[in-house]
């Protein structure tokens, strides 16, 4: 009984982390159809920025905000300068986003050295809570809560604001949206900044659990891709459900079938895509 409970909580926590990682990715791909393969690097760089802010003596939530802001700025600049001219050209997008990922990754090695570094947790969230005879880290419960909060805020943004309506219109039908006078270029930059901010924030929030080290970017990118494809691009409920599904699948999968640990995510994915190519949780076309 305790096993199932603790692993369920683990699954939730991992799912929350994945949502923070991939919500931005899904948003960017959903609206702009840009496969932003730099996303893992944004996540890692956000964590590094957060680490530096924390080492400078500021509080954890300041670091989160700083991580989000820094990556939002970087993402906005890159979108404006490099990606804007590449709409529709998938191959160029792949090349340039991976090229930028290489640059960010190597530059991070230069600046922060290659030593793996944990991010300190906010003092109010350290320690474990006693749950049904076992212990569960408080911070992970907080991550679940934060990811749900972010999901709600994003939902409010998309469903209840004008900007959100414009974004949804763009996702549904770009041509029509443009014809209706929606300022598509500016909208794109805004969405890209938002997506990048989510990645940067996710990096700092994930830092106390994952730590930050060279290679974090390439470890996280496939996970973001998996959530994207399972949840359907541009669908917020899809990204949320997809994240938690992956969290549970991974946690229980490697506990119950340890021999399949390396392929536990990919086997179901092949099955899922082969059966429902548009995504498990995508909205009906």
């Amino acid at each position, binding site marked *: 009984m305790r*096993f199932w409970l*603790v*692993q369920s909580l*683990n*699954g939730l*926590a*991992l799912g929350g*982390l994945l949502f923070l990682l991939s919500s931005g990715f899904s948003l960017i791909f959903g609206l702009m159809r840009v496969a932003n393969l730099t996303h893992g690097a944004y996540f890692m760089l956000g964590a590094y920025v957060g680490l530096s802010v924390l080492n400078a003596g500021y509080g954890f939530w300041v670091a989160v905000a700083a991580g989000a802001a820094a990556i939002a700025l970087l993402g906005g600049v890159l979108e404006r300068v490099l990606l804007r001219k590449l709409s529709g050209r998938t191959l160029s997008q792949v090349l340039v986003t991976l090229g930028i990922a290489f640059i960010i*990754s*190597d530059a991070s*090695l230069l600046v922060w*050295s*290659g*030593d*793996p*570094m*944990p991010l300190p947790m906010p003092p109010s969230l350290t320690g*474990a809570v006693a749950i049904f005879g076992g*212990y*569960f*880290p408080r*911070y*992970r419960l907080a991550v679940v809560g934060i990811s749900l909060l972010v999901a709600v805020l994003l939902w409010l943004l998309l469903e209840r604001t004008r900007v959100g309506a414009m974004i949804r219109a763009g996702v549904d039908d770009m041509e029509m949206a443009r014809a209706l006078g929606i300022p598509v270029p500016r909208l794109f930059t805004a969405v890209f900044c938002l997506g990048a901010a989510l990645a940067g924030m996710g990096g700092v929030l994930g830092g106390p*659990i*994952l*730590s930050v*080290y*060279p*290679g974090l970017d390439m*470890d*996280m990118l496939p*996970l973001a891709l998996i959530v994207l494809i399972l949840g359907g691009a541009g669908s917020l409920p899809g990204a949320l459900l997809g994240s938690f599904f992956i969290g549970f699948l*991974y*946690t*229980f999968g*490697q*506990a119950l079938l*340890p021999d399949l*640990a*390396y392929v536990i995510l990919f086997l179901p994915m092949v099955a899922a895509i082969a059966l429902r190519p548009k995504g498990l949780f995508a909205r009906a076309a």
Partner: protein
Amino acid sequence: MPMRAALILLAALALASGPGSAAGKDPVRVGFLTVNSGALAAGGRQMHEGLTLYLKQHGNKLAGRDIEVITLDTAGQPATTRTRTQEAVERYNVHVIIGPLAAFEALAINDYVRQAKVPVISPSAAAEDLTQRNPNPWFVRAVGSSAQFNQPFGEYAAKTLKYKRIATIGDDFAFGHETTAGFQRTFEDNGGKVVQKLWSPLNVADYGSYIAQIKPDVDAVYASFAGANGLRFLRQYAEYGLKGKVPVLGNMTTVDEGILKNMGDEAVGVVSSGWYSAAIDNPDNRKFVEAVRAAYGADPGYYTAGAYTAAMFLDLALQKVKGKVEDKEAFMKALRSVHVENGFRGPIRIDEYGNPVLNVYIRKVERKDGRLQNTVIQTVPDVSQFWKYQPKEFLAQPVYSRDFPPAKHLEP
């Protein structure tokens, strides 16, 4: 057009053909294989620091000859390692290679090194078979093999710490398998039982689900992690409230000085075994640690000490052949017969397979002067890669792996 391209190409390649041999007394050229990018970069940097420090301390001259180090980045990939090794031998005409970092890199160049007959001093790669069932006459190891420094530990855990039931968890790759196997074998030979064996993928996102599986009623957990994973595991272990309850026994790299400096209370009390500790209390080591702290601001660990030892071996062998490194056979013989009476790691000598016989230190993480260190609590002298077993019997058995020795006492 193709004609012009061909000419330009030829000219460019000719210009880049690398240095020819200089007139007069050549320096000894050392090919240094390391990793400068990705997750292994930290270890690569520490190896570079260890090597550079030794050379600097000796004025860049060993046995009266200048030393020229050619640093080659292997990118942590076997194919690239092989290419850089070929480059070292064919383009730079190196006399000796120090490196590579990872076991799979060493295995990738094993055959080539044998063909090309170039001496290799390994400062880090711990793969067992390199000096056991697949020994290479041109290879000498400056550090212990994976199981070598864990076999004494299994006995220690059973006889001194009096543990009876242990769960193991480790990185699911050869180094994790071999280290755990060494520990398990001697632990069970001395009356202990390994009741659970968990393996986590090398780049797993999160250890939470593994920690939750560890049986709560074991006497201790043996954790074999490399790179950043030791740091992440111990942190999460503490977060799940297990720290005070079930003690952790570590592999040398789980609490290596390279990552210990970034750890906190979660590491205090972890007992581990290794062929080095920055806290070894002899004058040579104290000087070494001071020098490393002054130059690089951190304590030396696995990689720094390994590379420093490799440089020391180079020095001793060069002295024995009076600097005549060109006589490859004699130089290799000198390398294989290196004997350190008393150095910063204690006495070291090389066995007939090219592996060192050395002291193994049982260490415990303690806080001293505001920083964490691996205090030495016991020294096991004169440990060979075969421990107390007969080499012939040892080699007749399969190499240590995930499934050997078989875990006969696992509980569901």
